């Protein structure tokens, strides 16, 4: 490859009539001009962030705002996340929209456990994020007690703009996360266990 790179400037000094055919030039140029090189992490991050499949765990009015988000005015499809799957096994983004009670908490946990890796969680609104004004015996004070949350949204209920803001933040987070590092860590763990 080093030789090819050195040979390339020499070919330019040859008069036009004596120049080798284009195919031969490309051969000389070496691998760095005939291949698209990119970081696997960047490619996977790009793929993941632009095809989020949300699972809406809607229990209250935040889910109504989510319908507004998915409808034509705010159009979630612009961000590649329009494919609502009401099946945890086929989705990778859990949107918890609404009040979660202690009775419902194990169900939410189970749904999160059923989702495939990689998975992300958005906690929508005051109730899901902190319990809101339900300071009572039956309401979970924030779903981060039972599932890890990536992005929180404030509001009661939040406007679709806030949803979009959260989605963009999550996309940045996904782009920044390293697939290769995660895979190496998982392999390391498997070796340790086995």
């Amino acid at each position: 490859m080093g030789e090819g790179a050195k040979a390339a400037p020499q070919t330019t000094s040859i008069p036009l009539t004596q120049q080798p055919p284009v195919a031969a030039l490309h051969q000389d140029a070496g691998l760095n001009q005939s291949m698209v090189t990119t970081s696997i992490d960047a490619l996977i991050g790009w793929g993941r962030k632009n095809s989020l499949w949300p699972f809406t765990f809607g229990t209250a009015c935040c889910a109504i705002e989510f319908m507004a988000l998915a409808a034509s005015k705010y159009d979630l499809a612009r961000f590649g996340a329009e494919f609502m799957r009401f099946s945890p096994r086929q989705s990778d983004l859990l949107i918890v929209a609404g009040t979660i009670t202690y009775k419902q908490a194990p169900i939410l946990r189970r749904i999160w456990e059923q989702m495939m890796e990689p998975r992300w969680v958005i906690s929508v609104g005051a109730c899901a994020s902190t319990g809101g004004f339900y300071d009572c015996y039956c309401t979970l004070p924030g779903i981060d007690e039972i599932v890890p949350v990536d992005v929180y949204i404030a509001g009661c209920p939040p406007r679709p703009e806030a949803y979009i803001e959260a989605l963009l933040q999550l996309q940045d987070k996904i782009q920044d996360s390293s697939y290769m590092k995660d895979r190496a860590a998982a392999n390391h763990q498997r070796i340790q266990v086995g």
Partner: protein
Amino acid sequence: MARTVPRPEMTLAEKAYVPEIVKGLKVTMGHFLRGLFTPETLPVQSYPETPSVIPRNYRAKHRLMKRPDGEPRCVACMMCSTACPANCITIQAGESADDRIEKKPVKFEIDLLVCVFCGLCAEACPVDAIRMDTRIVALAADSREKFKVGLKDLMSWEPKDYPDNDTQSQKAPGGLLNAEAKKQWGIS
């Protein structure tokens, strides 16, 4: 007695199936081509590029009003935190340096994630110190701590785009730059 609903007979074209499918595809393709060539006619609002028009009386993120001398107008009476149904306002009162005023908030913290944006704090305030007219609605972050906003954050919002004759303008009565108020406060 059951009522019989007369069913219309299908015409030959309808029975042939294909022409009707073509008709349906025409509608679909019409919508597709409209979106492709004249995207401005679509009902979509491309949000991050085109900001939403939010009415001024929409209850959005809070702000604290300032006195002409730059101090918060709040007198730490705790009315807002008492009225708050979600208990998201934390006020710590301190002694005011100005001898005309008894107290001032040393710490004024609103947890926006707990807040339900009901507007009761703004209604309860006796000195019109807290308002919810910033029109900041897209509040999202990756940790719960980031939603706790203090005095500095709450006082940083300026109604820049309001004209001078507007009631929310800084030159209007109650504003920072109002000449009358400045005179009363002894600020030239």
